[in-house]
């Protein structure tokens, strides 16, 4: 028997955020990709493949989008992928709960002139809400296969695979006004003939987009298109004069009309009179409630505390007893050269301060924290938190849109700084960047801080937390007054529904984050330990300690060993925290000192990656000014706190 060579075809899954795209992807490919109930989780495009009826289908997942313009980075990413991969079929994953939004996306997709298949997903939920969608009619009207699916249960997957072979370029078309149609035809005439999705490209050019990936990424057509650029701009300018008002509004109207017409033809029934909120919706509602929401948040924080301090502490202790101590003992015995011993397992040993620090001290804490945070993320809590905190944020000069970047800061400050780009007001961007870099602990920092303070008790934890919040609020208010107003952006936040956490996904995400930590951090841990070792060796460390003694010991009340922590801090926060934990364990830190140590490490010098992001987003001047302000105020405020606490302690006797 001669083995047939399998033909390869490509398909791309596109749809709204949280519409089930990745579930379909997983079902079709048998692969397990990351799904998180949080917007912007599929940052990179996942690819997989499956074989069906003699064809190997290469499948691409994509981030959720509502449109295919320039509105967001996700939209551009999808368009770039379409140019780069040239899929034969586009599978649109339609969320049956959000038909109008889905159809609007359909209106954009069919202008790509690529064969399509519709997956009418979550179709089971429409019955609960009392309406039905006529899939056959939809298929007839658009001229493409429509498959009813329930991706999370694997329903409809076979039919979907079959439908791929019947994909067609949709026969329906959005008709714009006469002037616009004329303009589109004129522009299309100037475009290189080999360009795909000409109508789409023409439309985006008419709208005045600055990025057109379909042309920019296609080297074959770029030259031709560049030559025609002037002619095209002429057409655009002419049309602008003729069309009253913004062209975008006219386009929107045409799309809205198309969507409404299609909707009225395929949707029947109405919302039942009394729609009972299901438990997920109720939980979501309470999580945003002005009163219950705070209780909910407090409960989550309590769980995090217990997890990180108690559970992780136990794990850490266990690991140390069973692995670390025997290992060090063994090494002490095995390595006889004192120099080598010093280098590896001495005070600044590459192994002790570097590797072991990372694995035995920091890793258990991060694991527990990432797990808890992962669950919170997965159930869809974070956007709801932004609802709760919005008013509070307004008081410090941040509009609602800045909430998400700041909340992301609790995940990773560097990433959060990069997302401030989405804020339209420069003032807001600056405030957000500053606050993220300043007294905000990122995930590892938060976890480690809780661990450090947990040993000292819950009151120190409370005091530190309160102090950091006050400092942030004060900083926000000061910046709000100082920076010139420029019309902050408003708050529109889509709230994805709460859902049960998918254990497999949470675990996968946690492991991914831990792996990333190990990969990125350990070399830095080891490197930083090496730097410290060298500094100690050449006597520079002692010199530094002497110089900094007045600040560190006298003013901030910390033991002189903290200087080492501060140096590590520049490299990575976790390294510093690991050191502090060891100091705390060894009983070398009082409660007050623990508080100051935590506060200082949180506020002082953001990690290197964060600094880079700061300079990138705020510009070099603003970035430098912020860095200076952050460090100066840290030293100043930490000292003040120290003296206040000592005075307080004195009073209590």
């Amino acid at each position, binding site marked *: 028997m001669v083995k047939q060579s399998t033909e390869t075809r490509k398909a791309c899954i596109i749809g709204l955020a949280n519409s089930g795209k990745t579930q379909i992807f997983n079902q079709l490919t048998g692969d397990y990709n990351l799904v998180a109930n949080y917007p912007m989780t599929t940052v990179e495009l996942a690819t997989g493949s499956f074989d069906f009826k003699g064809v190997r289908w290469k499948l691409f997942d994509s981030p959720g989008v*509502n*449109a295919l313009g320039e*509105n967001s980075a996700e939209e551009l990413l999808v368009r770039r992928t379409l140019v780069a991969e040239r899929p034969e079929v586009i599978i649109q994953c339609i*969320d049956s*709960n*959000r*038909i*109008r*939004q889905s159809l*609007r996306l359909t209106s954009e997709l069919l202008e790509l002139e690529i064969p399509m298949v519709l997956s009418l997903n979550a179709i089971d939920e429409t019955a609960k809400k009392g*309406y039905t969608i006529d899939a056959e009619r939809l298929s007839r*009207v658009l001229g493409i296969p429509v498959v009813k699916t329930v991706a999370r249960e694997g329903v409809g997957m076979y039919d979907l695979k079959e439908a791929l072979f019947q994909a067609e370029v949709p026969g*329906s*078309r*959005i*008709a714009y006004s006469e002037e616009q149609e004329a303009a589109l035809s004129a522009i299309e005439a100037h475009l290189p003939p080999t360009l795909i999705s000409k109508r789409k490209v023409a439309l985006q050019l008419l709208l005045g987009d600055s990025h057109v990936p379909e042309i920019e990424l296609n080297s074959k057509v770029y030259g031709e298109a560049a030559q025609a650029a002037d002619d095209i701009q002429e057409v655009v300018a002419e049309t602008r004069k003729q069309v009253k008002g*913004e062209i*975008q*509004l006219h386009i*929107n109207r045409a799309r*809205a*009309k*198309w969507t*409404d*017409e*299609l909707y*009225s*033809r395929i*949707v*029947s*029934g*109405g*919302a*039942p*009179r009394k729609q009972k909120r299901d438990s997920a919706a109720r939980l*979501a*509602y309470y999580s*945003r*409630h*002005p009163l219950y*929401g705070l209780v909910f948040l407090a409960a989550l924080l309590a769980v995090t505390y217990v997890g990180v301090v108690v559970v992780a502490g136990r794990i850490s202790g266990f690991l140390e007893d069973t692995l670390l101590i025997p290992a060090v003992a063994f090494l002490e015995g095995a390595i006889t050269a004192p120099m080598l011993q010093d280098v590896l397992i001495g005070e600044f040993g590459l192994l002790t301060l570097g590797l072991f620090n990372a694995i035995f001290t920091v890793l258990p804490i991060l694991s527990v924290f990432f797990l808890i945070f992962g669950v919170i993320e997965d159930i869809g809590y974070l*956007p709801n938190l*932004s*609802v*709760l905190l*919005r*008013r509070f944020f*307004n008081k410090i000069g941040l*509009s*609602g849109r800045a909430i998400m970047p700041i909340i992301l800061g609790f995940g990773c400050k560097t990433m959060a700084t990069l997302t401030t780009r989405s804020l*339209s007001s420069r003032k807001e961007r600056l405030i957000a960047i500053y606050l993220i870099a300043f007294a905000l602990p990122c995930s590892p920092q938060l976890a480690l801080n809780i661990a450090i303070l947990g040993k000292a008790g819950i009151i120190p934890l409370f005091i530190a937390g309160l102090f950091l919040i006050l400092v942030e609020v004060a900083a926000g208010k000061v910046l709000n007054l100082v920076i010139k107003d420029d019309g902050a*952006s*408003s*708050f*529109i*936040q*889509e*709230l994805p*529904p709460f859902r049960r956490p998918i254990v497999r996904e949470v675990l996968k995400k946690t492991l991914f984050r831990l792996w990333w930590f190990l990969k990125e951090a350990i070399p830095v841990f080891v490197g930083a330990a090496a730097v410290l070792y060298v500094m100690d060796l050449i006597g520079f460390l002692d010199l530094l300690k002497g110089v900094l003694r007045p600040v560190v010991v006298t003013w901030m009340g910390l033991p002189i060993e903290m200087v080492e922590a501060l140096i590590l801090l520049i490299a990575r926060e976790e390294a510093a925290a690991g050191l502090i934990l060891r100091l705390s364990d060894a009983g070398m830190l009082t409660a007050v000192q623990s508080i100051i140590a935590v506060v200082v490490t949180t506020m002082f010098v953001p990690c290197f990656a964060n600094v880079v992001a700061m300079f990138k987003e705020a510009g070099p001047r603003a970035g430098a000014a912020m860095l200076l302000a952050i460090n100066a105020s840290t030293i100043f405020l930490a000292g003040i706190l120290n003296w206040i606490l000592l005075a307080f302690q004195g009073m209590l006797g």
Partner: protein
Amino acid sequence: MDRFNTADEYIEAVWILLERGHASLETLADYVGSEYDRNLTQELVDRKLIYIDEESGEISYSGQGEEIGRNIIRAHRLAERLLHDVLKIDSYELAACEFEHIIDTDLIDALCTLLGHPRTCPDGLPIPTGECCRREQKTFRSPSLSLLELKPEESGRVAAVHCNDSHQLQLLELLQIRPGVVVQVHQISPSIVIECDGSNIALDEEIAASVYVWRMNRDQRVKKEAEPSRIEKRGRKGSRKRRFL
């Protein structure tokens, strides 16, 4: 009613006279006043819009004439309603005269629906019904209000979005917060949370203030979502070729 210089005005005049009792060359001339031009009346006859009884001078409509007259009167009186009720303009009569020349039935029907299919003009004269009234389009008697004024669990159909920021406007559009779509308020504190097209969306006061809705009664909510939009009836005018789908 000052410019009696077009045939349209005469057709309208005929309707009014017929309302009052009867129309004839005499009453028409009387009504029009000093500017009365017999030629215009003749034009109407030539265009087969009216018939004039040779003996009595009685004027009556042809089928086509009646249709035209009806539309003019309808447009005029609906305009009066708009200007008087909604815009509270005192000199509504004058402005309404301009409106009556709009011949786009869809537009007039839209206006009629907007106003809630009023039966009479501010002066009490009857407004001829349109297709929209006959189909008993559900409508909202109250003027539109901003989302801020809705209470939790109340719904409204978006009338307009008054937003100057094009970026925000686009965001709202993509979330389907646009004229014609129903939104329901779920929460007003600490932020306003609405549901629109199956999505829950949190808004601040500024954006909510820019979204204007017509409040819906509870029973209207049930049927509203699936009713065919008024655009669909375009088919009846034989313009099927212009349909989008």
